[in-house]
């Protein structure tokens, strides 16, 4: 049984208009995607803004409603569950949000922020609760006394770790990390990324890592899915994607990563021009008449590409 399997997931948003606010059209934020996560791995979801990667994450955790398709978490289809039935699965799936400045309630103490999920699921005495919160706050490397403080008293990296502590309290199996470090400075990024790797080992977590930063994705992820306009265009291991990209969109993304060697500057510029020309020239080969990509086809045991 797969740990998490997404089958033909579609999430459409209605566009309403006219006198009766009737549905006149739809935005296909996620348009028929299928992938699976194995226990203990880090799966990266990459794409430009607006490609549907965040919507995918939010739908898995139940913050968005799936239009159709299945989300099989340990064999159970989360998309079909009612709110009440979903409740017990919610604690196995937690989320780390993008912006540590807006994802923590400024009027709550750290204790209340981290204890909130515990209060939803467990009945603990205030003393036990405090002990548990202190355990997790120390796990994320913050001072146990900081539980009486408010979010504004912390720096960005510390806040993000408070968010991680909150996600850990219910011993989740899957963590969806939506751009967890893009709001942070490079050195703080390093701190949070290292830390996420440590707790992954310690708590045997599976990550769905959503990001547009290809350098970070490469550093963190075992397998990667590339999304474009709500669909997958390529999926494979880090190795497959970075050294042997097949789809033109993936090539374009990879060529856009700045080269850290200033001597390669001209070469990089030429490469980008080439890829761009190829992108324009062979667009029709990779996308159909409506601008949609084709279904994924395996080209090796681990690597699939959306080719006609």
């Amino acid at each position: 049984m797969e740990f998490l399997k997404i089958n033909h997931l579609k999430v459409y948003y209605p566009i309403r208009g006219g006198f009766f606010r009737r549905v006149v059209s739809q935005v296909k934020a996620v348009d028929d995607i299928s992938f699976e996560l194995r226990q203990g791995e880090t799966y990266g979801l990459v794409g430009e803004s607006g490609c549907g990667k965040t919507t995918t994450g939010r739908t898995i955790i139940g913050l968005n409603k799936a239009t159709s398709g299945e989300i099989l978490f340990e064999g159970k289809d989360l998309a079909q569950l009612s709110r009440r039935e979903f409740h017990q699965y919610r604690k196995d799936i937690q989320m780390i949000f993008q912006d540590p400045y807006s994802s923590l309630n400024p009027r709550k103490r750290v204790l209340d922020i981290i204890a909130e999920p515990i209060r939803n699921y467990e009945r603990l005495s205030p003393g036990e609760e405090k002990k548990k919160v202190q355990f997790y706050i120390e796990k994320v490397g913050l001072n146990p006394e900081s539980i009486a403080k408010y979010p504004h008293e912390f720096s960005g990296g510390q806040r993000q770790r408070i968010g991680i502590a909150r996600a850990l309290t219910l011993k989740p199996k899957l963590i969806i990390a939506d751009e967890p470090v893009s709001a942070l400075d490079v050195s703080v990024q390093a701190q949070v990324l290292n830390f996420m790797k440590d707790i992954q080992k310690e708590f045997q977590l599976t990550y769905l890592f959503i990001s547009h930063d290809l350098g970070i994705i490469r550093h963190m992820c075992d397998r990667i899915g590339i999304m474009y306009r709500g669909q997958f265009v390529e999926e494979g291991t880090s190795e497959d994607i970075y050294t042997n990209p097949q789809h033109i969109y993936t090539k374009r993304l990879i060529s856009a990563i700045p080269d850290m060697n200033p001597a390669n500057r001209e070469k990089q510029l030429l490469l980008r021009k080439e890829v761009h020309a190829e992108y324009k020239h062979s667009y029709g080969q990779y996308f159909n008449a409506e601008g949609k990509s084709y279904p994924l086809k395996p080209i090796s045991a681990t690597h699939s590409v959306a080719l006609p």
Partner: protein
Amino acid sequence: MNSKPLLEIQNLRTSFRIQDHYFAAVDNVTLTVNENEVVAIVGESGCGKSALALSIMGLHPQERTKLEGNISFRGNNLLSLTVPELNKIRGKEIGMIFQDPLTALNPLMTCGKQIEESMTYHTNLSKSEKKAKAIELLKKVGITTPERTYKQYPHELSGGMRQRVVIAIAIACDPLLLIADEPTTALDVTIQAQIMDLLKELQHQMKTGIILITHDLGVVAEMADRVAVMYAGEIVELANVHTLFSNPLHPYTRSLFNSIPSSASSKERLHVIEGVVPSLQNLPRKGCRFKDRIQWLDEHEHEENPVLREISPNHFVRCTCYQNFYFPETGIGDGNNGISKN
């Protein structure tokens, strides 16, 4: 290269008043920018790079800011000019690209009108000439439907398009110097690549000097000619881009290199710089400012009054602590960063 630099900053100190005391956010910075040269200023947030850019433009609130030193732009000291005199220069000879394209644009004005605005101040073009020039500028920054974009409002455009409009405004009067404050930070990689290529092209075409402020070393590697690394208001290392990437010396520069995930060191742990960038009030004013974040290094490795010293031709490093610097973790950090070994 031109004998006289375009911009010469000498011993610039920008101090802000906080509760009746002045604190220097930019401290003793000396930097030159030549024609047709890209100078990158790198550092984490809070290290004074944006404060430096705004000092050049004179955009700090005057009643709370004290500027000392000299900023000479083609022979004029910008700090001694009155506001009307400064207004003749900024927007015309010095253009600025702001970080966040959504807040930099006026939501109530069409893009075309915003591009024309600086032409209205600085040139005597007629209405139709201005419109023609605005459309030409939009075309120049790579917008495929310039006539349409001219009439559109900022909210109708995507992030990359908005940033292009911001660039079009900055280059509307053919500036000699362009200050780009994190021009690509809010953008996706593919658009970032396009904007970088666009800026380089503009530089070649118009021989503009560019000050590029960024925290992204990848962008620096692709664009800059010279790099100044700033920490806590001071320049800690200044070198040619090739020198800096192949032989970074200052502990802060090396720590920055080690903290980014790179293809060379994929599955290793990243280096974490201990502690945080000190706030303006708590900035150590004596000795090496980076000392607290590399505490494993012996006290006597640091200089008492660190100066920016020329170590090899055109390679400046502050403080002596770089000489015996090492990373405490094993595995990474010996020698250089493993990024640009070839």
